[in-house]
């Protein structure tokens, strides 16, 4: 079948959301770890910041990323009429 312009827009918005979330994932994981030594100087409620991020902070952000993604995409499906109905 031929995709409509609306379908293509849905996919582009999906790609944009994916890219933004992936960027956050990348910063939290790799950029923070790359600078782990300087960040360890910062005290975060008793933890050195880099230890806190690797042990807990980044995990919380991952969970939030997935929560946002599932909700946002569910709404986007309905907005563009590609949802699966009431299931």
């Amino acid at each position, binding site marked *: 079948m031929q995709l409509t312009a609306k379908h293509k827009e849905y996919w582009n918005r999906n790609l944009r959301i994916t890219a933004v979330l992936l960027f956050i994932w990348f910063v939290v*994981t790799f950029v923070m770890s790359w600078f782990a030594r300087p960040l360890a100087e910062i005290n975060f409620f008793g933890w050195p910041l880099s230890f*806190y991020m690797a042990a*807990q902070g*980044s995990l919380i952000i991952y969970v939030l990323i997935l929560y946002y993604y599932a909700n946002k995409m569910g709404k986007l499906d309905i907005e563009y009429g*590609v949802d699966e109905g009431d*299931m």
Partner: protein
Amino acid sequence: MAVTASANRAFFNQLRKYYTWYTGGFITFVIVLAILEQFGLPKVWIGYVFLVATIMLYAGIGIMSRTADVAEYYVAGRRVPALFNGMATGADWMSAASFIGMAGGLYLQGFDGLAFIMGWTGGYCLVALFLAPYLRKFGQFTIPDFLGARYGGNIARSIGIFAAILCSFTYVVAQIYGVGLITSRLTGLEFGVGVFVGLAGILVCSFLGGMRAVTWTQVAQYIILIIAYMIPVVWLSVKITGVPVPQLVYGGVLERVTQLEKKLTVDPKEVEVRKIFADRAADARKRIEGLPGSWETARADAAKRVEDLRTANAPAADIRAAEKTVADFPKSADDARKAWQAQASANAGRAGPPLPHAEPFPTNKTGEAGEKERNSKRLNFLALTLCLMVGTAALPHILMRYYTTPSVNEARRSVFWSLFFIFLLYFTAPALAVLVKYEVYSAVVGSSFANLPAWVAAWSSIDPGLLSISDINKDGILQLAEIRLGQDIIVLATPEIAGLPYVISGLVAAGGLAAALSTADGLLLTIANALSHDTYYKMINPNASTQKRVMISKILLLCVALTAAYVTSLKPGDILFLVGAAFSLAAAAFFPALALGIFWKRANKPGAIAGMVLGLGITMYYMATRYPFFQQALGLNPADYPFWFGIAPISSGIFGIPLGILAIIVVSLLTPEPDKQTQELVEHVRYPNLRGDTVNTLAR
């Protein structure tokens, strides 16, 4: 649609009711056992009751969920609600190593061990963003199914089958190994017997009901394992900090640990013990330099010592010890080199001060060498994190779970729930490591050998591999440098450190068993499906009736399980390191082909084949030539194979993943674009529901 919606909701409510009752029942069961313990129920009995009761429970769920229907057998009828699929994935995911070994790994490695924490959780972001919803829309039974449909023909599918079996089999051997270990610890049965008892538990479940039985058992197992993990940690936290939420407050404990580390680094007694280890290492190195002459002198010295002791009428124990030294003495100069090198590195490993727990990429070296080592550690940390993440998003037994949800949107929500349930355990493990470390540094170190804490005395007599202590400098006081811990002890001994009754130790063992069994179930199913569905049905006999397909699948499952148990009963301790390697293998083999197959329409069959072969090939090559185990097996000289960029072989996927992606892109662009049908398939999986879509890939 409205009918399915209300049916799904009713099903969800029913499940919620069952599992709430189940959880209540399990807690009551533990409380009853605790009361019986107070009335004098022997420890061995508690172990047996836990083992028998939990395995019977899993078997019961398996029998209730038995099925011969194809869609039920392979994907649990595609009606597992997001929340429950999340719990099942959590149990599927968390292996014996996560449950028992991880906190210990963090204890020993400090900050650097956190690569596992981030890698094994952050990977779910890739699962959700790149794969799960699209695979669910595709809606068949296995991961090679997708490769076969997207890239056409049997070659891509076959490589997928090979890779799926390769990474799942080493992984399943490790799980069954864990089952044998826990069973024998819990009941005193022999290791080999323990393996087969555990195997029976795995089989009743997956053999009768396939994915359907495995799913509902895994939910039950998740509940047990999370309760078993949390109780001792919370208790220990109350004991040390007075607050029952260890995850929130261990930052303060970490500060105290850091202060103790500083004190222990300069403590004169500690320095004295470390000096003894350094001298022993130097002595071993001197003997190695003097080879082969030093081997002959040392052997003559050992023999002479026996004579001297005999003439001097020394105590019988001393004479026996000296005789043993002679009997065990290396048989040749070559053997001596190996034995002494092991001695030198073991002693040198204990000669340094404690590595600071909170400091990223620590080293004892100073100046330029120190900077170099720090950078190398940082590079390895990042590489390992990436390999574990991409590997998570490529392991077939995990991806398969997202075929079982009722819809694409449920698949997305299900990845969220999976990560949430995994997160509960993973953000607790670093807290447990810090709490135990504090207890060891503050309460165990400095106690006298005559009056050790009860758990230290008990565990060091059970298994020196888990905990060994010896008074190196003969001062009667325990120094930190005199303690050697195996990583499994941290979780196993926590109930006793926290002062809890034995029933909680039994509970922890039952939790470890649940973690190992649930992972083994998922893996066995993956291997059996790769053989029965992908190989037999899709490639050998596409006309097989559904009954025959399910029957063949069950027979193969039995064969695979027995083979895995047989391999495990040989105690292949030296291949267990391959579990970490399975992530690199899966990452390089699957991820590029799967993700590009969805996100890049232009990716075609020759590209995918080239990418999978090259990615998997270079990863396997690097492992085979860099792991000491394979170097020995292949007769390679380690000096000829230096690490590329200093990357350790566990992260060899770091070369395979980019090479795989690059090969798919280059080869696809050099060859004709895929046909219209394939392009429509890609469009089909990208939209949860495309009205007027003529493609239908859903398998029933």
